[in-house]
């Protein structure tokens, strides 16, 4: 009895510091958000007034909010499948390339290390009309100057391209790790049987990498909602909210308009979205995948 008590006490003592920070900066803020989202708390109300679900009602009628949510879905649809496909391709080649393997890995991976804010500066220059790299490249092909970041129909594509450049190398690493875990005998057997390269990929490599694909897609999907630093430098959500995303909208609502109730309601939606993504992983997709 005494030993078990000591063991329990020691375990909780070890956990104490981590738990303290977890409670203070994850659970307490979540509770704070849910509570404040039920209040009207903005510049015109010095003392918050309880208004129930009014913030949520206003939010769902707000055109900007709807646009932001649509943008975020588009952004995810644009970055996740393409980023993952490219990462897989990179990994397969960077895994067995005879020449330039280290070069390939470094070239694909380095954007991961660069702060998003620096990436934004670089790509802002690349997308600049007239002087930017894009404009110069396209002018060789006789295409007229395009204002990538100033055109509502193009700005999202410009962002998607940039994010794929930034993220694909990161996902490549996980695929490289996954490829290491596939037994060599499988490939040798396929080789002896004279199976073609593409069939080997389709029947062996791809199915056995499914757990990695699932993991990477969850990370990519979560990132699609988390990445916003670039918007501060490049577009501020514009033009006309065509590049605005949920987290940036939260930032604007909280720190530019000081509408604290609405910012809390938006944060609550964000939490719900992230929990939904996690739930899909735990309860849905995970069962359909066979692990080796």
């Amino acid at each position: 009895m005494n030993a078990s008590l000591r063991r329990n006490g020691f375990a909780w003592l070890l956990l104490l510091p981590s738990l303290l920070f977890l409670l203070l900066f994850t659970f307490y803020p979540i509770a704070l958000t849910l509570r404040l989202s039920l209040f009207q708390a903005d510049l015109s109300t010095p003392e918050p007034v309880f208004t129930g679900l009014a913030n949520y009602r206003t939010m769902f009628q707000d055109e900007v909010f709807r646009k932001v949510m649509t943008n975020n879905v588009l952004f995810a649809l644009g970055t996740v499948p393409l980023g993952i496909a490219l990462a897989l391709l990179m990994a397969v080649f960077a895994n067995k390339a005879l020449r330039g393997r280290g070069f390939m890995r470094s070239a694909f991976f380095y954007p991961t290390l660069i702060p998003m804010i620096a990436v934004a500066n670089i790509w802002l220059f690349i997308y600049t009309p007239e002087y930017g790299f894009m404009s110069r490249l396209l002018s060789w092909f006789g295409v007229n100057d395009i204002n990538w970041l100033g055109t509502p129909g193009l700005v999202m594509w410009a962002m998607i391209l940039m994010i794929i450049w930034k993220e694909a190398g990161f996902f490549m690493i996980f695929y490289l790790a996954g490829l290491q875990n596939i037994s060599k005998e499988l490939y040798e057997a396929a080789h002896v049987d004279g199976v073609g390269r593409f069939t080997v990929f389709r029947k062996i490599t791809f199915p056995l990498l499914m757990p990695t694909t699932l993991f990477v897609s969850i990370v990519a999907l979560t990132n699609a909602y988390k990445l916003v630093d670039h918007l501060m430098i490049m577009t501020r959500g514009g033009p006309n909210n065509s590049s605005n995303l949920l987290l940036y909208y939260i930032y604007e609502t909280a720190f530019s308009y000081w509408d604290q109730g609405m910012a809390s309601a938006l944060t609550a939606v964000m939490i719900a979205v992230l929990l939904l993504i996690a739930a899909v992983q735990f309860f849905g997709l995970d069962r359909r995948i066979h692990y080796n």
Partner: protein
Amino acid sequence: MKTKFTSRLGNILMLALAAFWLIPLLWMTVTAFRPRHAALSGLFSLDFTLGNFATVWSAAPFATYYLNTILIVVCVFAVQMLTASMAAFAFARIAFAGSSIVFLLFLVQIMIPADVLIFPNYNVLKQLSLLDTKLGIMLPFLASAFGIFLLRQVFKTIPAELEEAALIEGCSQWQVLWKIYFPLARPTYVAFALVSISYQWNNFLWPLIITNSVENRPLTVGLSIFAQSFEIGVQWTEVSAATLLVITPLLLIFLVFQRQFIESFMHSGIK
């Protein structure tokens, strides 16, 4: 014969893609070393200068920004290492009441990271009167659920016999943690260090929100303020030089440790 040809072709195409991936970095590096008129003219010339770096260094307090970032990165990682090792040891090796529930609680931090809770965390920091302090920048990151899960995986693979032997020799459990588990998990600590350091070095939104004085600003916030102090499109050479100043340390570390970096990532169980 045909497969050999297609595989070589694929390899060449991927090398070309890798080269393409380098264009943004090369473009910016070249721009940073060129006088303004040469950078904007579009024609290649042999005009190179270090003037942009001199301008940048004197125009904004980058030395202070550097010190702040280094201080934040080092402190956060040091504390994370301590808190995460302790918690991971508890989860991996001690059968205690409530372990699965607490484990689930930590999972929430992975699902809902601090980046998302910017507004409520700002309020928490205000209640603690820690706005515009370096401690405030660090606080939300001092416990890392990611680190706990990572280290727990590794601690579990360390044979229990080692621990039993040490206990028989008269070591306390605390000594076992620091003398056996800590050194044996070194490769994982390297991987965790790289993740933690690059995350803190690059973190932007949170420090932007809570700092408003030069003494507390990290590099990323300093860079964004510097870049936005110009009319768009006018001072690309200076902005490129400043950007290069911010990203070079991490890129150098990466180039030097490239092999270990990618291998430790691949074998650390982050998957």
